[in-house]
């Protein structure tokens, strides 16, 4: 028994060692990539891109479910984006509020004949409307089956551009975000099949008319920790994985895809929980099956601002759902593991996700349990325990601080020094008790999935507006669009 506990504890140590070394490597790769990207930006003038006649058109797909409070502003913002040629398709996904009426009223929508090629499956479409004010706006009114993926598929069927960009109706894109996200595509249109941009947390920032006036750090501690998490995930994780062409997720809140590839893989899968992760994985599979030479890229400066859960219950649900989505996609694609055909995706990216993302809560909570058991039995090596704690804490803090530093040195969205002070402080504080709570939520997600609970649970939303302007909470807002 004692030997078993000792072996488990040492295995746990090795697990953390490898995990942290991977993080450290990704941090170094991300720092180098960011430096290169910054240099690139100095020699690149976005306004030249804006003037070019050859920039490919983009269709923005905006699924909207019960977004009556923010839909006018959101759509107007999208129509005002800096890009030579865009088409905005809003998919009214069975809203029970006045989302469609708001759109009809604001943009003087009139029904149009077939604009629709049902190449990917989706629920019944009632009607298509085009704006008399701005013909770039098309609205699809469809039945809801409670899936964002289904709504995006409807938009995909109506899209006429070679590239589609998925945007959440409750997110805000910076004005030049499309130009920035398309830079890799323009440099290599033959090989780049998808590009993801960075998603940042909007909570507590000041807005006016749907435009971001001032970026502020949220007030609540777990919201700040989410900011650190997002910085770490995007500025380090995705940046580094994309360098090795092993990016497995492009956020559903903001990503550009080649429309023909998305259609070729059958669009989004409505029954999947993590539809964005699922799509990218299937794109990898599709292209690797055909031995295609392709790249899926990440660009760190086109920013999409989105609202993060501002209460613990919603956060717990979101994280549980992410974990369910992860398990769902990994299970469905388990045949890709260790198959030569899938190269680095099958040998590195997916195994990493299995071991260090999917199983992390089990291993971590299991580890805590074995340590407690060893302590209870009086066989816990104090020396091992301290080594283990210091090791985990120092490494994890270094990675978090690395992401904050990268943000500070390069993108610097948090201009108030007090915000930076708080951000750095939370790099030291996030490890207890937030990390353990996070692990429990993720474990709950796994448990729910095993029990067959794959439903979406509502999250509370504040809505688009400044702290002063914010409308009251909308309890009916759709969880699937976060």
């Amino acid at each position, binding site marked *: 028994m004692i030997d078993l506990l000792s072996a488990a504890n040492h295995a746990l140590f090795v697990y953390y060692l490898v995990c942290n070394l991977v993080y450290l490597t990704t941090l170094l790769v991300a720092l180098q990539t960011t430096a290169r990207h910054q240099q690139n930006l100095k020699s690149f003038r976005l306004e030249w891109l804006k003037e070019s006649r050859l920039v490919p058109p983009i269709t923005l797909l905006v699924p909207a479910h019960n977004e009556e409070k923010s839909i006018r502003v959101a759509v107007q913002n999208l129509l005002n984006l800096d890009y030579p040629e865009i088409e905005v398709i809003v998919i009214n996904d069975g809203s029970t509020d006045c989302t469609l009426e708001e759109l009809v009223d604001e943009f003087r929508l009139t029904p149009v004949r077939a604009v629709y090629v049902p190449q990917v499956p989706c629920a019944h479409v009632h009607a298509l409307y085009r704006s008399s004010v701005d013909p770039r706006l098309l609205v699809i009114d469809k039945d809801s089956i409670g899936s964002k993926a289904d709504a995006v598929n409807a938009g995909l069927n109506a899209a006429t551009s070679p590239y589609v960009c998925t945007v959440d109706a409750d997110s805000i894109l910076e004005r030049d975000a499309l130009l920035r996200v398309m830079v890799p595509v323009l440099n290599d249109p033959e090989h780049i099949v998808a590009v993801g941009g960075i998603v940042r947390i909007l909570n507590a920032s000041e807005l006016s008319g749907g435009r971001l006036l001032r970026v502020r750090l949220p007030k609540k501690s777990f919201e700040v920790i989410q900011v650190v998490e997002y910085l770490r995930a995007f500025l380090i994780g995705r940046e580094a994985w994309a360098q090795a062409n092993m990016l497995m997720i492009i956020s559903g809140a903001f990503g550009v895809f080649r429309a023909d590839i998305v259609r070729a893989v059958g669009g989004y899968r409505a029954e999947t929980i993590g539809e964005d992760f699922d799509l990218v994985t299937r794109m990898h599979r599709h292209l690797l099956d055909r031995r295609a030479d392709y790249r899926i890229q990440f660009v760190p400066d086109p920013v999409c601002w989105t609202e993060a859960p501002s209460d613990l219950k919603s956060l717990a649900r979101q994280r549980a759902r992410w974990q369910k989505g992860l398990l769902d996609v990994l299970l469905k694609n388990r045949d890709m593991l260790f198959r030569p055909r899938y190269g680095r995706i099958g040998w590195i990216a997916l195994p990493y996700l299995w071991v260090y993302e999917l199983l992390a809560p089990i291993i971590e909570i299991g580890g805590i349990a074995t340590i407690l058991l060893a302590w209870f039995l009086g066989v816990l090596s104090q020396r091992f325990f301290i080594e283990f704690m210091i090791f985990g804490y120092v490494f994890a803090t270094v990675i978090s601080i690395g992401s904050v530093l990268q943000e500070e040195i390069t993108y610097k969205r948090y201009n108030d020094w007090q915000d*930076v002070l708080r951000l750095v402080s939370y790099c030291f504080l996030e490890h207890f008790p937030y990390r353990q709570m996070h692990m429990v939520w993720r474990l709950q997600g796994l448990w729910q999935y095993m029990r067959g609970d794959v439903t979406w649970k509502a999250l509370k939303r504040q809505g688009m507006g400044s702290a002063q302007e914010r409308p009251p909470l909308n309890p009916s807002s759709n969880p699937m669009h976060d």
Partner: protein
Amino acid sequence: MGSIFEKLWALGPAGFVLKIIVGAVIADGLLLAFILLRRTYRKQYFDRRDRRVYDFRQKWDALLSGEIPYDTWRLNDFDRRIVEDIVLDAFEAANPAESARLLRFMRTTGLIEKRIFEARKFRGWRRTRALVALGRTRAPEGIAALAEGLRDPHEETRNAALRGLARTASPEAAEEILAWVSEVGLQAPALLIQNALINCCRESPRMLLPYLQHAGKEVREMLARVLGEIPVGAMEGELIALAGDDLPELRAAAARALPNAQHGPALETLAELAQDPIWFVRLRAVVALGEIFDRDAVPLLMRALTDSNRLVRMRAAEGLVNRKLEMSAIFAKVVAAADRYGLHAYLAALENAGLKRELETELRRRGSQRGVGHLLTVLSAGKLSGVEEPAKPSADAATSAVPASRR
């Protein structure tokens, strides 16, 4: 790892933990100090810069005219960078007269020579930045240095050189790009090259022809796309010859360029291209036919309305709808053709152009004529009587309200 821990362990557990806490606090402090110092430095730098920019702006005309001796600012790196940035930004929005004035200033002060020198002597990012700056000036004397940049081993530098040449928009720059492309192939993103050539070949599209005839397949296709985007002037003969090329891209480019030809479009050539086996060649030809307001184009567009490709049908319908004076006659022909996909495409184009009500009014005006009632029925029902529409919009029936520019 073990040895490190052993050394640390020798310090004793309590002391060790304490030291770690102190270490973490110190690291935290150092990090914050770094950030604060950096922020303070940057604030001071930008405040200083802002003050200097304001100073220069106040006496900008005197600075440009040379009333203020150039040496008062150009020997100071900080000041010189500010002045150069202001001038380069001014180039972006300057009219020709202002551009000439700015260019004169850049020449007189030696700023252009400095950038040319940097573009030739330096490597890496410094060269790239020099090339970008040179491009922004649009100075003809920078073309040679920019052309040398095309042969740089680094992709980013080559791209910067290409963008710079595109800014000059001069045939000399086009010559350099064409020579480089024919020498090494597509060693930069095709879109960048196309964009540069479109800018630079506008005045003399004929310079593309020798390369279109003799370059490799990939380059010819790229050049064909360029040709399709620029006014081709009196090149009808050459375009008709291209319409018979083996490469579909070239035939499509010829179709796209023909409506712009000075001596009028060659309908016969477009009619042939509208029946090409490759769909995008037909599409280009139909788009071109839609732009030609010639009665003879109508039967060709009517035929294209029954094309097997939905995009071709869609463009044909748009071309027909654009002929507003003949709307009712064309609609009668569409109905007579009894092709439900063609009708669908036509009605969709009509709705997208907001002309359905106009056609209805026109038909009602001709109310006494034979067959008008049937036409009105078809118009309001959106389908041919006796022909069942598909229950759901089908892939083939689908046409769109896509703006014409989305081709």
